[in-house]
């Protein structure tokens, strides 16, 4: 399978998972977006040597991923890429920070190793939080929620359009890549062929944009996609935000005093 097909398969899987109707999927998108933002900021605000203090935060993404029943396979590539990036940038930490840091009573470890592990943990928690949000919300509901939270309509319209045509152009691109791969006998894609391949995809894209515009004008389009009625922000959604934000803030505050610096 080529890279485009692999990415499209993950995207399709996430889209299918997001269309489920569990209790968590029925929670308003705004509630989940706000809670995820608090979660991300709480993790980022932990000091650089925080490792054990970070573990309780895993409860939130675990809840999201278990509710979405997302297979681990979909998480593998993003986790691997993020951890590789974190390892590349944090690789110097163990060598440059040799200051001893007390972990337990009578148990010390070099500060650089702690900050190195902390970067990897932050990466894992950040990735699972973001993917958990989209797997339990879906792009359309999230866009509705963002619009209700005050994100400019132009940007929300662009997000919806992009997401709608992502599958179409992704399939086009995957088919073209597969056709080239089957004819290339294992040779890498040459630059001149790349220009022609991607150029043709671009020409199709531009033609498609013209057709879409004409079709939308026929349906009374005036530059703005109507978002329709959004879900009502009910007491259950308010309770979700309140409980999780309190839990996350409590975990963060409970560790604020006893960090080694």
């Amino acid at each position, binding site marked *: *399978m*080529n890279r485009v097909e*692999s*990415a499209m*398969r993950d*995207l*399709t899987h996430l889209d299918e998972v997001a269309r489920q109707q569990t209790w968590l999927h029925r929670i308003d998108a705004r509630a989940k977006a706000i809670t995820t933002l608090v979660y*991300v*900021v709480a993790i*980022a*605000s932990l000091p650089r040597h925080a490792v054990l203090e970070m573990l309780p935060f895993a409860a939130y993404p675990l809840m999201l991923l278990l509710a979405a029943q997302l297979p681990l396979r979909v998480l593998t590539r*993003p986790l691997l*890429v*993020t951890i590789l990036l974190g390892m590349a*940038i*944090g690789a*110097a*930490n163990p*060598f*440059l920070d040799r200051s001893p840091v007390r972990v337990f009573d009578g148990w010390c470890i070099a500060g650089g190793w702690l*900050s190195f592990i902390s*970067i990897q943990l*932050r*990466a894992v928690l*950040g*990735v699972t*939080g*973001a*993917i958990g*949000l989209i797997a339990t919300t879906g*792009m359309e509901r999230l866009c509705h929620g963002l619009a209700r939270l005050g994100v*400019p309509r*132009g940007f929300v*319209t*662009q997000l919806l*359009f*992009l997401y709608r*045509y*992502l599958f*179409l*152009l992704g399939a086009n691109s995957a088919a073209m890549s597969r056709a080239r791969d*089957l004819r290339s006998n*294992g040779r*890498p*894609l040459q*630059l*001149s062929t*790349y*220009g022609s391949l991607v*150029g043709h*995809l*671009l020409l199709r*894209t*531009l033609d498609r*944009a013209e057709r*879409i*515009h004409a079709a*939308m004008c026929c349906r009374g*389009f005036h*530059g703005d996609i109507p978002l329709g009625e959004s879900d009502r922000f009910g007491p259950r959604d308010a309770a979700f935000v309140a409980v999780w934000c309190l839990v996350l803030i409590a975990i963060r505050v409970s560790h604020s005093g006893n960090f080694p610096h």
Partner: protein
Amino acid sequence: MRPSVFASLARQRLFEYYKVWNRNTDSVESRRADRFDPTDGVAARGSFQGELNMHMADALISPAVGGAMWLASAGLTAYASRTIDARSDGRLVPLMGVSGAFVFATQMINFGIPATGSSGHLGGGLLLAALLGPCPALVVMASVLTIQSLFFADGGLLALGCNIFNLGVCPCLIAYPLVFRPLLGSHTNLRRVFIASLAASIAGVELGAAGVVIQTALSNRAELPFSTFLLLMLPIHLAIAVIEGLATTVILGFLWRARPDLQPTRSQPTGYSQSVVPVAAGLLAAALVLGGFVSWFASTRPDGLEWSVAKATGSSPLSGSTPLHAELSRLQEQSAILPDYGFLGDGGEAPAGENEASSAHWPAAQLGSSVSGIAGSLFVVLAACAVGWVSRAARPKREPS
């Protein structure tokens, strides 16, 4: 039979099996059948090449840096959205949508880099700016990065502001109007497209890479020293920029040959407001912030040039040795409004011990530094405006045709 030909035939046979098997399964199962994909071996070689691009990650930034970059990127994206709303005829909306999907799909197609054995892919910011103009391109890049951060966790939610700035603002709002358009002019021959794309890619990608280094250093999560990290990132991203420039050249070359009607014209707007007032206000605000606040953080150590000369010659380059130099130096001190970036007597005349004591409290709010910074910044802005005005006045008037 040569092994490569045999491999090709085997792959075709496997593909036939795959198609038959795929036809006999339902839609959900057919997606899972991809594990039997015959082209696995073809693509596996490059599957992680080019993945380590310069997406900033949540793990590397602090909330203060992430929040500040969120605000900056959200403000610029909102400005770009408003500009589009003001001049859009509705045609741009679907075009932006499908262009974003195009960039998203194209970023996953790798091409071989000649004579290196490695591969690269398109970033897309510069290409989008060339197709749509800078402001729509920024909105499209912001949407692509948002989808990537949500679905593929490229970067992260807190780092989204950093990524929009590094990968969207730098190529679309800086490299395209200031490098690409002036270099390209109204010519669209392949040589000019190549020069403009390469220069603009280098400017945009290196600025973005420098942004990653600055944001990481300010966040204080990684131990890597600022200068070492910068020296690592800039050469690596120079190679990435060359790949971006090559990819942009071949795509634009193909497109403008196939569709000459899409070539840029001299009269095509760059996407910025024609009014000078918002630009001047932005420059003034930046000058005041930089001069009035950031100047507190100015290092008391010698600057790079002084340090280099001192290392090379073994002595301070600022010590005058001839009578003429001493006289000129005395004249300069007497005439300087703000000597050594402070008020007369508050810095230059202080004893050495006091200077050391004050440097221990760095950064400290210093009125002299602030006034010097603001005055200096205003002088630079005024001088730049004066040069622009003079050059405009000196330009021969074109007769209306």
